[in-house]
């Protein structure tokens, strides 16, 4: 005996087919509207979890990008300031060598002394210069200036360079240097040495001793010159590291975004084509239903 097809069965089939097609269309429309293939975790649980982890990584990279930018700006400020300081040091060296010359009169030495004193003030300003709310060369000691703003005496509170992590998993880099590291050494500091030079230039009444003092100053200037050269090199190296890190962070960010979009994103063209197909299929079903099922009753007079 044939499988009996009853009116009810036909109607049930039609209604469940129409329901399926409408569900499918609504899923496709949601994908087109949101641009996403995964609109809720159950759309693809594994993909949804991957997207969550990727988004966290992306956020983290964006954070490190901000940190790297901050590090770069801080290092650039230190770099510029150090260049200024090197020019001043160079000028002082010229002035001290003029002061050492036997042909220089005391009157000229006094004028030189005035300029050196001004430059000493400039160095003190640079040493205590601020970056935002921080002392640029204050390192980890930010409660007080690195050098006494009046006397130039180095702060008694110990300090270290500030470190900042600018790349996931990488070691933190120094985002600055302390004033002590290039303005002092184990024997003295530049302000004390310049004070001695100033006294000698203005004359203490003992020209021989003054001459020796200025000669000492001259050799001390070499020491400070070396110190700032080293400091400048360290800052420059870290600035380089920061730039490389930024490049890597940008590349990582892009590739993470791409991977996230690959997993989560809907293929617009494919989705749009599928939607059209589904709508046509629904139209066809609806037409068949609307035409109605002919029954024997239709032909009975």
């Amino acid at each position, binding site marked *: 005996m044939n*499988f009996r097809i009853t009116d009810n069965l036909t109607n049930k089939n039609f209604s469940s087919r129409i329901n399926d097609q409408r569900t499918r269309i609504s899923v496709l429309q949601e994908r087109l509207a949101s641009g996403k293939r995964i609109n809720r975790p159950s759309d693809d*649980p594994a993909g949804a979890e991957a997207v969550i982890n990727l988004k966290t990584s992306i956020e983290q990279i964006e954070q490190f990008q901000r940190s790297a930018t901050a590090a770069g700006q801080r290092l650039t400020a230190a770099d510029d300031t150090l260049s200024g300081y090197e020019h001043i040091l160079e000028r002082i060296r010229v002035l001290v060598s003029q002061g050492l010359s036997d042909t220089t009169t005391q009157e000229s030495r006094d004028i030189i002394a005035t300029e050196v004193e001004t430059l000493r003030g400039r160095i003190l300003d640079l040493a205590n210069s601020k970056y935002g709310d921080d002392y640029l060369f204050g390192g980890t000691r930010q409660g007080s200036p690195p050098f006494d703003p009046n006397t130039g005496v180095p702060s008694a509170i110990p300090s270290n360079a500030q470190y900042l992590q600018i790349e996931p998993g990488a070691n933190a880099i120094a985002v600055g240097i302390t004033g002590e590291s290039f303005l002092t050494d184990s024997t003295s500091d530049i302000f004390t040495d310049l004070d001695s030079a100033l006294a000698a230039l203005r004359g203490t009444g003992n020209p021989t001793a003054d001459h020796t003092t200025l000669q000492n100053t001259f050799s001390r200037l070499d020491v400070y010159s070396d110190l700032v050269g080293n400091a400048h090199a360290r800052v420059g190296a870290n600035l380089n590291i920061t730039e490389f890190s930024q490049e890597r962070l940008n590349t990582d960010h892009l590739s993470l975004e791409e991977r996230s979009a690959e997993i989560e994103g809907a293929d617009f063209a494919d989705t749009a084509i599928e939607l059209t197909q589904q709508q046509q299929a629904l139209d066809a079903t609806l037409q068949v239903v609307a035409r109605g099922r002919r029954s024997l009753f239709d032909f009975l007079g």
Partner: protein
Amino acid sequence: MSINFSPLEIGRRALNANQFGITVTGQNIANVNTPGYSRQRAVLSEGNPDRFGNFSIGSGVTVEGIQSFRDQFIESRIQAETGIAGRLTARRDSLAPVEAILQGTENGGLQNALNGFFSAFRDLDANPGSAPLRSIAVQKGVNLANTFQSTRSRLFDLRQGIDSRVRSTVDEVNSLTSKVADLNGQIKFAEATGSNPSGLLDQRTEYVNRLSELTGARTYDNGDGTINITIGEGRAVVSGVTAFTLEAGSTPPLGLSAITINGQPAVFDEGTIRGLQDGLNETTAQIDGLDGLAQAIVDRVNTLHTSGTDQNGNPGVNFFTPGTPVTAATISVDAAVVSNPNLVVASALPQPGQNGTVAGEIASLLTDPNTTVGTRTGSFSSIYGSLISQAGEQVRSAEDGLVTQGVILAQATAQREAVSGVSLDEEAINLIQYQKAFEAAARFLKVADEMTQTILSLAG
């Protein structure tokens, strides 16, 4: 030659039988859209033969009764499959909100709150002396706590909602079982007295189908017109004309429902109730997972936060209010920190405003893979991701199961329709058949009458 009145009798019976056939056809047409209706057929048979001279000839047609087309094997298969579909539907419906709640909105979800909070500490790492960034860290902490709380309270409400659905389903089951027990009695009586119980059987089948959907119930035919209905591992909810009432008690500490029959725990293996019970368990597991995540965040952030010094140079205090246990409902930023953001710790050194080491370490906790919450080990972010993917996976598997189940059920229903369903074409043919037979029988009666008249006029 005697007058034979048997043609009149044959004609009468034929009219009667065909009228009966038309009535049954009408009944079928009338019930073409009645759920659970099984098509019927008039059962006719040839009348006992009479002697007619040397021959015996039939005495027309007799109506034997009505036959319903019903296949018990298909019916019980539909019951079993309906039970599975009931469980999957309830499971999907109760768990679908869980994933939505955990996922949150694009910008308001737990993921954004987590990222925002730990990002604030990364910013503080770069600017350890900043007062505004400290305030932001506190705000993001408060936002994280609030998001935890609102997410948990939604899950909690959802669980209460599922529980009340369990209770209302139990009420419906009780009403159905007492109806079935009642029908059992009526059908038994009808069969004993020889009347046609077809309508009652159809009605009972509908109730049993609904019971199967709700509880995964199975039926056993007792042979006397009654059926027994059992759930789970064979506990009877209907036995003959007796229905046993399910009770939904409340179990501490959560007050969730525990279902018993006569004081004994009722186990459901399929059906809506089982799906809802699964939903309850899963929701509870998600709430526990969320609680564990909150506890882990509080513990690990506090450990680091108390290891450093605040902006005033004092030893760090707890960032989050500590407690055993901290749950997603009780997590909060310590009141002292909220009122004074200077207490936020960035530095490891015992002086104010130095470096951001501790802030950096706190920020790195988000992706530190050494946190353990329950059976999950990973970072805060990946544990949250795994909670979400678990919720999604459960909805997905219920949905996939439903698709398969839909196909199986549709196939079983098609089989049932093939046996029991009404086809209007068939009924139209039956109608023509019976009508033509009725006309012929009437014609036959007329002829028989004329013959009788002819013979009577001979006598006259």
